[in-house]
């Protein structure tokens, strides 16, 4: 993977087109559905609703790109979303603990999951796919036991208000949590030595090690950060729903990976990047929203997700002269 955003063997114009192709595609989708459904799709309320309700998915996708940048997969992200939501539900509703304590313990659980992942991946040296597949199952089992496999409603009203009812420019605060995390990751990836080190570790661990980078520390930190961000996604998800259930977060994992890979074709092509990922989430959501408004069956939306990912990555590869990609 190239360290620079400019694509090898292509003109600056082609590079610019590649960087913003996804943004263009998003605008084209909006324009298309806007023309077809001006009264319902092209309204601020529609976008406000979409921005807020997709915030957990955006947060999970952003969580995943942290270890992906370092060359590690985190398949436990979906389970960690569920874990955080259920911890909030069980502690705050079933045990009547204050929401502040429940939030702190949910985030602490994220640190724990990330640390367990990091121990087995970095210290024991088991591939990240294997370890996180295992922890995903382990966490899922724990969540079912902890919640008695039941959905818990009635979360603290103030907390739910802060996530979904309170708004800025007509958009719930949930969206701004995702924006803040995207800003943070963008800053770290682009403007800090840590971001550069993470990129080098992802490119080649041995080379990074020979250059004096503490590869194990960087990887471990990325895995813990990923789990903590996944718990944040779970917290926002619980706020958006006003409830916590022991299964649903798991279903966000594959779409989040799709958004991460789709995002890596844009803004900084060839790299997992915060704004590319963020735009990818909302590009997919816009397409699905428009299709839903047309009353098209939902299997079409799944097909749209998959096709958009494959087409975008394929076009990006052609634009790059079909050079070998090391995205996964």
């Amino acid at each position, binding site marked *: 993977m190239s360290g620079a955003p400019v694509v090898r063997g292509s003109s600056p114009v082609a590079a610019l087109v590649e960087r913003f192709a996804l943004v263009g595609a998003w605008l084209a989708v909006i324009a298309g559905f806007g023309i077809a459904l001006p009264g319902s799709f092209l309204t601020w309320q529609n976008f406000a609703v979409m921005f807020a309700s997709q915030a957990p*998915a955006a947060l999970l996708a952003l969580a995943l790109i942290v270890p992906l940048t370092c060359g590690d997969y985190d398949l436990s992200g979906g389970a960690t979303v569920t874990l955080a939501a259920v911890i909030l539900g069980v502690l705050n509703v079933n045990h009547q603990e204050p929401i502040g304590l429940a939030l702190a313990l949910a985030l602490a659980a994220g640190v724990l999951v990330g640390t367990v992942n990091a121990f087995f991946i970095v210290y024991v040296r088991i591939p990240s796919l294997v370890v996180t597949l295992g922890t995903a199952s382990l966490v899922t089992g724990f969540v079912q036991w902890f919640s008695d496999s039941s959905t818990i409603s*009635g979360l603290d009203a103030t907390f739910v208000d802060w996530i979904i009812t309170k708004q800025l420019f007509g958009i*719930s605060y949930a969206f701004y949590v995702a924006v803040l995390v995207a800003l943070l990751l963008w800053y770290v990836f682009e403007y800090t030595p840590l971001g550069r080190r993470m990129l080098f570790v992802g490119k080649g661990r041995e080379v990074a090690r020979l250059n004096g980078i503490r590869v194990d520390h960087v990887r471990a930190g990325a895995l813990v950060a990923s789990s903590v961000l996944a718990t944040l996604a779970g917290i926002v998800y619980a706020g*958006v*729903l006003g409830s916590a259930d022991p*299964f649903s977060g798991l279903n966000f994992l594959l779409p989040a990976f799709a958004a991460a890979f789709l995002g890596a074709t844009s803004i900084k092509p060839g790299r997992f990047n915060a704004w590319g990922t963020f735009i990818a989430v909302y590009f997919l959501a816009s397409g699905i929203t428009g299709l839903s408004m047309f009353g098209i069956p939902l299997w079409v939306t799944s097909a749209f997700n998959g096709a958009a990912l494959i087409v975008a990555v394929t076009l990006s590869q052609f634009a790059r002269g079909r050079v070998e990609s090391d995205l996964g």
Partner: protein
Amino acid sequence: MNASIQDLPRSRPARAPRRGLALLAGVLALLAPGAASADAAADGIAHAARQIEKHRAKPVFVAPGAPFDAQKCAAGRKMLSVPNSSANPFLKGIIKREVEVGKQLGLTVQEWQNQGQPSQWAQGVEFAVRNKFDIVNLISGVDPKTLEPQIRAARAAGVKTMTSHFYDPSQPQNPLVAASLPVGFNAIGKLLADWAILRSNGNAQIVVIKSSEVPPTEPLMRGLRDELAAHCPKCRIVNEVNVGVTEWATKIQSSLQSALLANPGVNWVIPIYDSMSQFVVPAIQITGRKGKVKVATFNGTPFVLDYVRNGDVDMNIGESLDWIAHATIDGYLRALCGLPVPKDIGVPFYLFDAGNVKDAGVPAKFDQGYGSDYVAGFRRLWGLAK
């Protein structure tokens, strides 16, 4: 009306009144379809009110058959209960109570723990054969069609496979199944429609959330559509959103939001299984339609009853798990001992709304609020009490 006009004398002075009457007749003729439609709407609302009323009273026990010596029938027998998934609290709750009811009669009930995979259900049936169980109980969602080789082998070994809470009475049971205790899913669909008709005053514009892959969906949707067509001329299903069970979390909220924004006239959402509500309620809230769009659903799951108490859901149709457990064991023992099997499970549906939902507990619990009349009823039927 026309006859009376024709009968009027054709004299000149009468022309003006004749013109007036003709005009009146014309207006009435134009209004007649509207009047008929208003009558139909009023009749529909009255019909819906009658249906709803039947299910608002505390459920009353009706004996599913003649009394019999259940202890003698159950003595030394074993039943393996295979739920659709052991993670489902509704099914888990039924089995827990089956174990307790079984103890009273000398019937050993064991759960086949599984995670919802058909290969695990198949293992369960094989386990029952190897360990000489008398009954394999496939509960709610385990389709005998997916286990035919195993059920055939079980039958050859003398193990009877039975289903409960799976078929609608209108659906034929799999021929390999020894007995079946269906549930009136069609009737549930009709009740959901009746509630929307009544509460919308005959003008429900509905988005339905369904999962067509689940076998009870078809009879339930048929009941819903038929009832609306028969009793509500102005009601309309604006959109039927079909979401696979594994996609509830990722698709229900977004597709309902789109449907609500695209159709501002929608005033009802019917998620046909109540666990869908956790994604329906936030969709209504986030689109700013809380209070304008009402929700009616089915299953009586506790967290959804809490939604009813909080005003997020208007009505939930519930069934008592303990009653289901009693009725299942009653029906299966009758089948085992060669007695006539009831034509359905016979557990009444009970409507929870803001007026009675506190009876289900705060927070709500499975099994609370249905009364306990049936317990004494079954004990008398089984010869355990007089």
